Every structure is written in structure tokens, then in C-alpha cells.
């Protein structure tokens, strides 16, 4: 077969020498690992830094709906990382800074997908391309093939600077201060492999935005972000730090309200140094920069960055890109041309143009969005798209965080022809940026940490919504839906109008896939605020949730009221009432479809969830235990609603015990689960020491546990008392979460 050596001989001369060498080194490490001559952990870190991730089932186990079964991979016990079998198919992530890609690059990725993957290119929510089901031995060849056309997988994963995202309409947008593209590009090149960015405890995500008001850059949810501003005719940026999603979403804090462009790279370098030096290293779950910012406060952090900046040795690269950046200009393929109003239009064009086309700042040009279902396109479509781009727009292609592709600088006169060409390759779907354009992370399809099927749900919603008449309402059509397979939030559900993240509930002894509903996140203003969690609903009822929420909003909103305002007006309680009947689940024997996830056929199980190296944060043991506690608390609510007071009381108590036990086990790994031991240990370690206390509530959220434990189960439970206990249980679990967050901040700065 065509070997890696064949490709190396052919492609190495075409690559930048440094890159060719790096890939050679990775290949050598791969061979050493195959011979078991380097440690699996060392190899795992190397592999991740080269963008090669594990996928679901890579520990060699898979639940087939009846039980967990061994996958007998041919390489036997050889691993490519801890609990990661050598032969398990993996994912390769290709970085596209600011989503920029040329037709030639797209062709090469298409070829690589076809020859080394499953023929699908998947656009991610951070403008990367991912290939799935790639054999580890094949990753080297893909790296070489894409490296020969100037793209890389380097640091696409692992604890480093990930892809740098940016507005896909930068340079053609009406509201931007200036085109951020060359600045994002310069930072990407400067920080790639930079020695000051090799010692992070966790990943570091950077975003650029051309203005503050629109969504495109999503700066507020990034570890580090830059928003363009011009002051006194000088280009510069406001810089933001410490944003993030995941289990503890935080909005970024203002680091500097303005720095000139000449200071952009040294400040980023100084931030990297401070984060590398003070960020948490041991506990990956607390190692993102947001925890360091929380601990230190942004003012102290800024002082450290200032001090670091002052002693940085000068680097010519800080400013050598500036003349080129100032002079940066896109290179349209064609001259602008207005559309001929008398020209006959193809069928379907008007609707497509309404949702997928926006006029550029440059008269006579438009941006056309190619809406990709679930971010997927085939190699054949990718080639077709690159042909279309060559004809109409040249190199002006970008991927988007909404998992689409935009073609920029389409002469207006050519839009109908472009539409027809896209229709010819099955890529002319209308609905970009509407409720039909659903974003979803990989979820249980391929991600080790997936809890529920985000792609399955997104596909189902898309199909149903496309056929639903109610989405024609203007107030509904513009809403955004985003789905994550778990709380790590790669689907960016926090900033959706209607967001979902997967979780699991144990009901009557069966695991039932659920999604937590998160409403009212703000997409605009660079992901300006996060949504409100309003409760978990069985996966199979989520389409009903969407219909109920959207139609109620359309019919009951006040004149001019936004979705976010409506959600805020209703509040958690009223929304809870609105969705209450959708929490019900038929019995297992009555309707088994509720016990099977979307786009799956196996009885649902969480047995396939792995620990480790996914696109998101690593699940800590505490979080897993707390998830169980939440599941039990949910069951208590269900029992309460069913009028089974004794069971609701018992489940509430057990949920509090689980949460307390989760904390105890952070300090005593093998702590007994006996209720007396749990309560005693929790009280001694966390309550009596006041460590559990917060500034406003002291330790009051723990008291219901002590009282219920001391008094035992009521002989004749009172409905009101049990309802209070169920509510207090949720507050106790929330307080444990908060304790974890506080701890995270404290630990973050202690290293």
C-alpha cells in the first residue's frame, strides 16, 4: 500500500522545513510507541498536541444495548494513551485560523477525508475541520498532505493555544472598526508552538471580533479575546480575558480597554507567561484561565501581565506584521456587479437569498452562507464547493462557528448562478442563521464524554422544524438552537436562545437520556450573556419543548419584547410550569422509545462515557457524582409530582447524601458511603471548619441534611414539608457546586 514514506518523500520538499521536521518527529514517536519504547502518557500528550484525539470506545469497550462488550482490536494491548487502545479509531482536528480556507486547501482536506477517514468533513463550532474514524497510523500522512498546502493540526488539541477564531465576515462587514483578519493571523503564527505557551495546565482559546455589538467573534466566552477599536486614527483592541463555557460558564473580564495593535502580540505573550506560571496544573478541572482570574481578580491579574510585559525581551515579530496588516486587502475573484432586476430567478432562489445572503460593505458584492446540515459535507461536496469558489470568489471562503461555510465577494449579479451551482451539489439549503440552522457538538456519535445524542437530536429537530408551519412566525424564525452532548458545552448552548445539553436520569432503574434546557442566552454582543437552565427533559420530548417554548413566546410576548426579555420576565418558575408536563416518562414496558436515544437503536446507557481527552473539559469525579445527585433530586421531584411523598422525602435525603459524599471523596478517596459516615465526615471536614460556608448564606444550605439525617424519615410525610425538603435538596447541591467553583479559584492561584 502507499506508505507514509511515499508521502513523506513526495511532500516534505513542499512543506516549510520546520513543519516537515515536526511531522517526522511525530512519526518517529509513533513508531517508538508501537514498539513500546516510550511511555503511553508521553505519547498521548504528543499526539494531542498534534491534533489527534481519541474517540468513543477507544478504551476497547462498547455498550451494545444489552451490556458492555469488549472490542477486540487487532493490536491487542498496545495503547496510544492511558486507556486508549492503539487501534481505536480517532479524530483528527485541522486548525483553520479565523476559518480561512482556500479552494486548494479544501480539495486536499477532501482527499484526505476520502482516503483516510469516512469521507466526511465536519466543521466545528470553533471553525476547525474534523475528520473522524481515522487510524492513528494514517494521521501522519494527513498531516503531511495538509501541511503541504499550508495548514496544520498542531496544537489543535492538548494544553495549548487552540484555533484562533474570528468573524467570518471580517473585512466585508458593515459594523466592524477594521478587518481583524491579519491580526488574528499574526497572533496565530506568533503563538503557534511559542515557548511561552507550552506550559499551560489546560487549553487556551482566543477569538477576534471586529465590533462589540454583533455575535461573530464570541469574544466574551473565550479565554482571551480582542475586539477591534480605532482611537485617534490608530488601530487597536480592547482585550478580554477569562471567559468560558463548560460547567462553570463565565463572561470574560475586561483586561485593557484599549491597546494599540503594536502591543497586541506582546500582551498576549505576557498573558501566556502569567497563565503558564500561575495557572493550575494538577487539577485539569480547575486549570482554565477563568479560574485564575476568579481567584486573583482581574485587576491583580492585569498587574501581573503589566509586570511581565515590562520585562519581555523584544521580539521583532511583535510589529513586523503591522505594515502588512494595515495594507491587508482581500482579493476578490471578480469585479463587483449589481444584480439585474429583470433576470429570471431559479426556483427556490428567493427564499435562499432571503436567509443566506447578506450584502457586503463593498457595493456590488454579497456574502453567501452555505448551510451545512450538522456541519457535515462530503469530500465530493467539498470539491464541488472549491470549484464554485474558484469560479465566483477565489480564496474568499471561511468556515463559521455555526458550522457553516461562507463565500465572500460574490458579485451580486452572480448570486443566482451561485445558487444553482450550490443546488447541484446539494448545498443550497435556505435557513442559514434561522431556527433551522441548528448547531451541535459531536456528542455520543464520536465524543468520549457525550452523555446524550446531540447530533441525533439536532437532526430530528431540523427535520421536524422544516415541516412545521409555526416557524414561519417572524419572532420564531430568527431564534437559534444549539445542542451539546454534555455540560462541557462544545455546542455553545449557553449562548443560544434555546440551548440543550445532555444528561442522564435514572428512572425506575433505567437510564433515560435527557437534555437540560437552557433558555435566553445572548448570541449578539459577542456572546453577551448566558442562558438560564430551567430543568431536564427526556430527550424524546425535546421537540415538544421547542414547539411549546417558541409558540408560547410568539403568542404571549409583549410588543417588541425579545426572547431574552421574555424569558427573564417569565423566570424559572413559570417556565418550569410551562414545561412541567413534558418531564413525564412512560413506563419502560409502555413505551421503550424513551429509553433509546435519538439516531440510535440500543437501549440507552451511560456505560460508554470515557474520561480524558475530548474536545471539552475533563469530567471530574466530583462532577460525575454530583450529576448522580442531581438525578436523584430530579427523581424526588418526580415522586413529589406523583404524590408519592415518602419516596420524594427519601430520594431528597439520598440526593443530599450523594452530594455530600461527592465532596468528602475529594479528600478521602475511599470514603464510606454509609449515611452516618458521610454526614459525620462532611460535617467535620466542611461544615465545622466553615469551609463550606459562603459569604452570604454561611452554612445554611447544609442544615437540611443534618436535620433530616438526625430525625429520620417522617412517619406521616406532610406535602408542604416534603416539597420544602426537595427544594432545599436542590439548593444544597447547588451550594456544593458553588463550593467546587470557589475551590477551583483558590487552587488555581496556588501553584
Amino acid at each position, binding site marked *: *500500500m502507499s506508505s507514509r514514506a511515499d508521502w513523506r518523500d513526495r511532500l516534505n520538499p513542499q512543506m516549510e522545513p520546520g513543519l516537515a521536521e515536526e511531522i517526522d518527529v511525530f512519526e518517529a514517536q509513533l513508531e517508538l510507541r508501537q514498539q513500546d519504547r516510550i511511555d503511553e502518557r508521553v505519547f498521548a500528550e504528543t499526539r494531542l498536541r498534534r491534533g489527534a484525539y481519541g474517540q468513543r470506545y477507544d478504551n476497547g469497550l462498547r455498550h451494545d444495548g444489552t451490556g458492555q*462488550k469488549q472490542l*477486540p482490536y*487487532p493490536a491487542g494491548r498496545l495503547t496510544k494513551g492511558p486507556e486508549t487502545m492503539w487501534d481505536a479509531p480517532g479524530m483528527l482536528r485541522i486548525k483553520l485560523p479565523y476559518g480561512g480556507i482556500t479552494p486548494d486547501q479544501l480539495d486536499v482536506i477532501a482527499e484526505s477525508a*476520502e482516503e483516510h477517514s469516512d*469521507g466526511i468533513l465536519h466543521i466545528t463550532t470553533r471553525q476547525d475541520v474534523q475528520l473522524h474514524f481515522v487510524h492513528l497510523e494514517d494521521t501522519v500522512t494527513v498531516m503531511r498532505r495538509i501541511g503541504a498546502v499550508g495548514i496544520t493540526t498542531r496544537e489543535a488539541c492538548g494544553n495549548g493555544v487552540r484555533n484562533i477564531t474570528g468573524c467570518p465576515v471580517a473585512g466585508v462587514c458593515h459594523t466592524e472598526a477594521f478587518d481583524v483578519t491579519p491580526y488574528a493571523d499574526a497572533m496565530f503564527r506568533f503563538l503557534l508552538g511559542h515557548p511561552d505557551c507550552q506550559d499551560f495546565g489546560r487549553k487556551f482559546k482566543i477569538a477576534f471580533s471586529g465590533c462589540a455589538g454583533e455575535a461573530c467573534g464570541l469574544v466574551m466566552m473565550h479565554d482571551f479575546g480582542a475586539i477591534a477599536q480605532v482611537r485617534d486614527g490608530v488601530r487597536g483592541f480592547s482585550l478580554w480575558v477569562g471567559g468560558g463555557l463548560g460547567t462553570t460558564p463565565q463572561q470574560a473580564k475586561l483586561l485593557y480597554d484599549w491597546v494599540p495593535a503594536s502591543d497586541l502580540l506582546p500582551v498576549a505573550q505576557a498573558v501566556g507567561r502569567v497563565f503558564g506560571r500561575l495557572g493550575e496544573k494538577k487539577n485539569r478541572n480547575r486549570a482554565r484561565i477563568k479560574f485564575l482570574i476568579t481567584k486573583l481578580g482581574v485587576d491583580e491579574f492585569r498587574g501581573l501581565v503589566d509586570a511581565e510585559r515590562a520585562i519581555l525581551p523584544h521580539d521583532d515579530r511583535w510589529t513586523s506584521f503591522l505594515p502588512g496588516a494595515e495594507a491587508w486587502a482581500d482579493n476578490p475573484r471578480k469585479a463587483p456587479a449589481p444584480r439585474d432586476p429583470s433576470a429570471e430567478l431559479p426556483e427556490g432562489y428567493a427564499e435562499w437569498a432571503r436567509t443566506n445572503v447578506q450584502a457586503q460593505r463593498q457595493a456590488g458584492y454579497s456574502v453567501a452562507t452555505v448551510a451545512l446540515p450538522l456541519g457535515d459535507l462530503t469530500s465530493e*461536496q467539498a470539491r464541488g464547493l472549491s470549484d464554485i469558489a474558484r469560479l465566483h470568489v477565489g480564496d474568499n471562503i471561511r468556515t463559521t462557528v455555526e458550522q457553516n461555510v461562507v463565500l465572500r465577494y460574490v458579485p451580486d449579479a452572480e448570486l443566482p448562478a451561485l445558487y444553482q451551482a450550490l443546488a447541484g451539489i*446539494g448545498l443550497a439549503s435556505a435557513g442559514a442563521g434561522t431556527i433551522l440552522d441548528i448547531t451541535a457538538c459531536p456528542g455520543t456519535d464520536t465524543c468520549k464524554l457525550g452523555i446524550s445524542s446531540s447530533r441525533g437530536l439536532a437532526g430530528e429537530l431540523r427535520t421536524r422544524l422544516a415541516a412545521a408551519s409555526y416557524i414561519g412566525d417572524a419572532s420564531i424564525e430568527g431564534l437559534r438552537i444549539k445542542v451539546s452532548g454534555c455540560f462541557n458545552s462544545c455546542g455553545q448552548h449557553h449562548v443560544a436562545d434555546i440551548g440543550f445539553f445532555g444528561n442522564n436520569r435514572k428512572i425506575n432503574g433505567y437510564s433515560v437520556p435527557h437534555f437540560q434546557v437552557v433558555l435566553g442566552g445572548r448570541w449578539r454582543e459577542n456572546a453577551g450573556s448566558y442562558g438560564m437552565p430551567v430543568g431536564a427533559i427526556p430527550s424524546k420530548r425535546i421537540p415538544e419543548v421547542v414547539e411549546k417554548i417558541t409558540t408560547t413566546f410568539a403568542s404571549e410576548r409583549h410588543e417588541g419584547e425579545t426572547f431574552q426579555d421574555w424569558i427573564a420576565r417569565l423566570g424559572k418558575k413559570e417556565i418550569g410550569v410551562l414545561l412541567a408536563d413534558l418531564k413525564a416518562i412512560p413506563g419502560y414496558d409502555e413505551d421503550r422509545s424513551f429509553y433509546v436515544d435519538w*439516531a440510535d437503536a440500543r437501549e440507552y446507557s451511560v456505560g460508554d462515557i470515557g474520561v480524558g481527552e475530548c474536545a471539552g473539559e475533563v469530567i471530574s469525579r466530583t462532577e460525575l457524582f454530583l450529576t448522580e445527585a442531581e438525578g436523584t433530586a430530579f427523581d424526588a421531584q418526580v415522586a413529589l409530582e406523583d404524590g408519592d411523598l415518602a419516596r420524594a422525602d427519601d430520594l431528597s435525603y439520598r440526593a443530599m447524601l450523594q452530594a455530600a459524599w461527592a465532596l468528602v471523596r475529594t479528600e478521602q478517596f475511599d470514603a464510606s458511603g454509609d449515611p452516618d459516615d458521610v454526614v459525620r465526615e462532611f460535617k467535620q471536614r466542611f461544615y465545622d471548619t466553615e469551609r463550606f460556608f459562603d459569604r452570604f448564606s454561611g452554612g445554611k444550605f447544609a442544615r437540611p441534611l443534618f436535620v433530616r439525617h438526625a430525625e429520620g424519615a417522617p412517619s406521616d410525610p406532610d406535602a408542604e414539608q416534603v416539597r420544602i425538603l426537595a427544594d432545599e435538596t436542590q439548593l444544597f447541591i447547588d451550594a456544593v457546586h458553588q463550593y467546587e467553583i470557589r475551590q477551583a479559584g483558590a487552587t488555581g492561584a496556588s501553584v
Partner: protein
Amino acid sequence: MSDFPARISAKFFLRDGGDVDAPALIPVFHEWIRRGGVVSGLVIDVADYHHVPDGPGVMLIGHEWDRAVDFTGGRAGVLSVSKRDLDGSLSERVAAVVADALAAASALAGEPSVPWARVGLDEVEVTILDRLFAPNTPESLEAIGPEIAAALAPLNDGAGPGLEQVGDTRRPFKVRASLAGAPDLAAALEGLRASAVA
């Protein structure tokens, strides 16, 4: 240059490509994984791409092989892709891949929940997914066409069929062959297996 391609695929088109319900394959493929032994090699997972127009539909992902009811080119067919090195000459390798596609088609023919998944034996597409080994050029056809034709001979009354090269040079090397048509899947498989070293 190596002597053999990294990946080879074969696709037999569905007899009635008009009434395909791709999601119905999801439970079928999951059940194949659970049962084991339905198709050869290690089967790992089911990948659902039925939302992608003219895409790979629903795939049964394996370690050595992927199988799918594939819609590429706008025509549905049972596809098998060999992903790991095979044994034998190129002709034997192609025969092994074609045999695997027929075996998958045969297994699907036994699934009552997908009555539309029945292939015709009068046409097959063979793709060499390795541009380094065989770019999609007339020279490649000249060089490896005879070996592919020889592999298909058992499905064509023992004679190598004519091959029609498909697609331009940016596509992987692909040929389509019209076949005399074996009487049934079992006979076709038997003939092929005799000439393949799988």
C-alpha cells in the same frame, strides 16, 4: 512507490433506488455489531450521515472495513471500503473487496426491515482510494484496469468486463463495469471468493 493501494472500495447499486429509508439501517447495523459475525472483521460503530445529500448514508464502521448504503453520485448502493492492507495481488485484493460488498449486500437481503436494500448484479463500481498509487488518469486505467477486470471476471461469465473510467483527475481512480450478471448473490460470492485472498 508501493505496489498496492491503501484503500479500495466496491459498490453495487440498489435495484430500486427510489424508495430508500436510510435511518432504518441504524437498528440493522447495531444489531449486526451485537450479533457479531454477520460481516467479516471487527465492527465498531454506526455513523449516521443520512442528513448529508448524496453522502455515505448510514455507515457500519469497522476496523478493517466500512460498509454503507451509500448515496454518492445520487445513486444508492451497498458499499464496502477496505481500510487495512489486504493480501495477494491487486486483482485478488479487488476481488476481496467486491466479495465483501456482495457479502454485505447478502446480509442486508436477509433483513426484512430494509426491503429496499437489494442490489443488482449487473453493474459495479470499483474505486482505488489512493491517489498516490493510482491517480484518476488514462495511464492508471491502462496500468491497473486489466487487473480490476480480471477480478470482476467471475461476475461476468468468466470474462473481464469493459471498464468505464468515471470522474476527472481530482477524483479518486474509479471505474464502472457492466456485468453479465450472476444468477444470484450466492453464486456471485462463490465465484469471487474462489479468486480472492480475503
